[in-house]
């Protein structure tokens, strides 16, 4: 007897729905896509969470666009900064699209109702942010459009409000666990929809669709210290991986410099944009040594590395000399209360430190995946370096266009979700106008049913939380800001062991309704798969570039590594040796205007 109220035709206990376009994920990219798709095609948005719980809401500092509202700026400078910020691994045609379309993307949001901070003339106000410069690196430029330090919250709310206005069809707390694919006569992958697990009832739903857009966000939970939500377990990326589709540049993960010490909660770079300074134990402004021109506003990879270096060199603060300070005291109470209110409260609540009068202990926190599902500039998912899967799209953090290369600039992710979310929605609408439904295979929910029931029935003794904690601890120790061949080999060994132990994982909750115990077990499977790819690709890249710092290969090596990593699942996916089931390949970087140069700030 079905308890689901979500409708659909029920056959053999499985609900069947049909939509032209299914969007997986209701964060910024998913809802921006929905605003394009909803009015023009029969569209459903399927989300593991209620839409406004999505982690876009945690973004703080701003969204970059060369509006020139407060000083001279132009999109070409923004393109250059994005390419240089990404340590030249950025596809430059994509970066140009990002920077050009940024202006409309911000205006779109304002027109939809987003309450940006304003200049005295009533225009959208802008502030400085790391790596964004005037005239190719001459000085920091005010490019980040912002709403206090809750820009992401305002974007998420505004997009949701507009989805409500448009009557978008949401399936909330539905956990998509499989992409339904069929091979055509030439062996190419075709998309037929997705399979979702309804959290409220434990029932399975097949969504038959012409097009699928993945907008499932990141996977920061492979690390212990992270700014990411508990729910960011890389499900969408993992689903695509398990289908044999490639993942790009997975070794590049961004560690945001200013996570609250011990907790990883984000303190926006906007604080430094407003003038806050990083100091070591002796009070020295150490970024002057690492980035003499733009100092504390250097890109995140450089600042994070500099902070860890200070600690390694014995200049860290605190009883264990294991953190540095973010000093906001000279900004004054008014700037903190009006432009940085949320982070001021975070420091007070969680560390008991008042930023108005004392510096805040900070250390880098795992923040953003530059890699992910490879797409072209139309947000179409690639199945090889050049061929796409028709009807399959990805946008936002789960995707790799690549506009961020090996290191994303702050404020470019809120931009990415809007520019490429919109493109994904528009292109899916065009696609479904002429495409037919690919017929569903026999019992399309079979694999998900096996996965779920296998976990529910497993009589093993391993606890999900124990395995997850072991993974996260080891990733922090061995695959964080500094990496070596040895550290990566060690953590790969841990992952292989955990993948074996995962086969005996046990859930306490055997019920159907809101079984979050089962959900966490499924999520752990994705975390292990993804961590394995991240580490395997990291070990293979014997150079240092952007967010990937190899202590044993400290220089960038353009001769051998000026190319994207493409990882494929091949062979036995359950084998405990990564080499048995991960095949690595390369994809050329698109270079249009800017020849790679040494990166100095």
């Amino acid at each position, binding site marked *: 007897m079905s308890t689901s109220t979500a409708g659909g035709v029920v056959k053999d206990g499985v609900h069947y729905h049909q939509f032209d376009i299914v969007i997986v994920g209701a964060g910024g990219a998913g809802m921006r896509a929905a605003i394009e798709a909803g009015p023009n095609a029969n569209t459903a948005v399927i989300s593991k969470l209620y839409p406004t719980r999505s982690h876009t809401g945690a973004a703080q500092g701003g969204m970059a666009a060369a509006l020139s509202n407060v000083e001279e700026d132009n999109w070409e400078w923004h393109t250059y900064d994005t390419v240089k910020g990404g340590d030249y691994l950025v596809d430059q045609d994509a970066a140009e699209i990002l920077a050009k379309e940024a202006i409309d993307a911000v205006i779109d949001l304002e027109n939809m109702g987003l309450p*940006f901070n304003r200049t005295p003339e009533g225009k959208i106000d802008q502030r400085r942010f790391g790596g964004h410069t005037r005239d190719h690196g001459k000085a920091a430029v005010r490019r980040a459009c912002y709403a206090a330090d809750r820009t992401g919250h305002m974007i998420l709310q505004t997009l949701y409000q507009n989805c409500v206005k448009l009557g978008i069809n949401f399936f909330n707390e539905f956990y998509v666990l499989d992409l339904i694919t069929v091979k055509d006569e030439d062996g190419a992958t075709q998309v037929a929809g997705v399979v979702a697990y309804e959290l409220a009832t434990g029932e399975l739903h097949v969504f038959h669709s012409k097009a699928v857009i993945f907008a499932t966000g990141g996977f920061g939970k492979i690390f212990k210290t992270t700014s990411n939500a508990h729910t960011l377990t890389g499900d969408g990326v993992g689903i695509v991986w398990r289908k044999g589709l490639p993942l790009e540049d997975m070794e590049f993960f961004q560690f945001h410099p200013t996570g609250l010490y011990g907790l990883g909660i984000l303190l926006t770079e906007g604080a430094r944009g407003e003038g806050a300074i990083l100091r070591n134990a002796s009070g020295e402004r150490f970024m002057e040594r690492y980035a003499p021109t733009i100092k504390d506003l250097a890109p995140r990879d450089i600042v994070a590395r500099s902070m860890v270096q200070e600690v390694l060199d014995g200049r860290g603060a605190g009883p264990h000399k294991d953190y540095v300070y973010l000093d906001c005291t000279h900004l004054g109470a008014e700037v903190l209360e009006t432009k940085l209110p949320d982070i001021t409260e975070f420091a007070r609540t969680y560390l008991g430190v008042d930023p108005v009068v004392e510096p805040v202990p900070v250390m880098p926190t795992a923040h953003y995946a530059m890699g992910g599902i490879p797409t072209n500039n139309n947000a179409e998912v690639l199945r090889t370096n050049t061929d796409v899967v028709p009807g399959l799209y990805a946008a936002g953090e789960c995707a790799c266009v690549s506009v961020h290369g090996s290191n994303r600039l702050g404020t470019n992710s809120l931009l990415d979700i809007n520019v490429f979310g919109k493109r994904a929605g528009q292109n899916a609408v065009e696609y479904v106008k002429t495409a037919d439904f690919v017929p569903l295979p026999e019992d399309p929910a079979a694999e998900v049913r096996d996965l779920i029931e296998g976990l529910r029935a497993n009589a093993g003794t391993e606890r999900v939380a124990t395995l997850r904690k072991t993974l996260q601890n080891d990733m922090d120790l061995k695959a964080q800001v500094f990496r070596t061949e040895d550290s990566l080999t060690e953590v790969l060994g841990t992952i292989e062991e955990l993948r074996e132990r995962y086969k005996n994982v046990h859930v306490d909750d055997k019920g159907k309704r809101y079984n979050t115990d089962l959900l966490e077990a499924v999520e752990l499977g994705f975390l292990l798969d993804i961590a394995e790819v991240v580490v395997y690709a990291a070990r293979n890249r014997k150079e240092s570039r952007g967010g990937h710092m190899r202590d044993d290969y400290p220089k960038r090596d353009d001769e051998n590594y000026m190319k994207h990593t493409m990882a494929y699942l091949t062979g036995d996916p359950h084998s405990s040796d990564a080499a048995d089931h991960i095949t690595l390949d390369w994809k050329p970087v698109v270079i249009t205007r800017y020849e790679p140069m040494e990166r100095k700030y």
Partner: protein
Amino acid sequence: MSTAVIESEQPGGAEEAPIQSFLVTFNIRRFDPEVDAEPRWVDYDVEMYPTERVLDALHKIKWEQDGSLTFRRSCAHGICGSDAMRINGRNRLACKTLIKDLDISKPIYVEAIKGLPLEKDLVVDMDPFLDAYKAVQPFLVSHSKPETGKERLQSPEDRARFDDTTKCILCAACTSSCPVFWTDGQYFGPAAIVNAHRFIFDSRDDAADVRLDILNDKEGVWRCRTTFNCTEACPRGIQVTQAIAEVKQAVLRGGR
């Protein structure tokens, strides 16, 4: 009882180590719809540090003692709005409630927020809450088109007029703390009015009269008894009761 002291080092924590941990008792109102006819209170003893949060306690129970304990959470730092619950009789976010701010000499009582249908343990059905939100037209309605490719202008003063109510994260802590909402589920509730306020007082919006009309309904702003529960409950510090009062005044004025 919960005064046992355990000496060990806290992982992360900026103060001098070692920091004392305590054995704290959590009394959680549990309900499994597949088994229980009625909710029941269950005790758990958990080792906690003063700077940890109630959400950490729930995770320790779920991860180490009983995986079936069910609650929503996501961001874990007070911006996603997933984990509103009643903690010692007050609506709070579990991720923003520090152990050191509670009296741990007694058990800490944790239960689902009231006034919305209980689904399982600490999980309620949020749909009635979101239906009320959607009913106040929580989106910008403007009859004039902005110049193509340009923002609508808004002075910093006009922007400041509705700043407080833009902070809402739809956690339902306010609405589910409201005695009027408990007895009359038809009442729009504070959160819906807060979100109406956010647009009524936005100088770019042209539908204030529509929303004021909706909220002048018998289930609208006049049901508010100014008990201030909502303002106390709001984890974002929104002056909820004041926002409701401003909407009431706007209804009487017949406009913003």
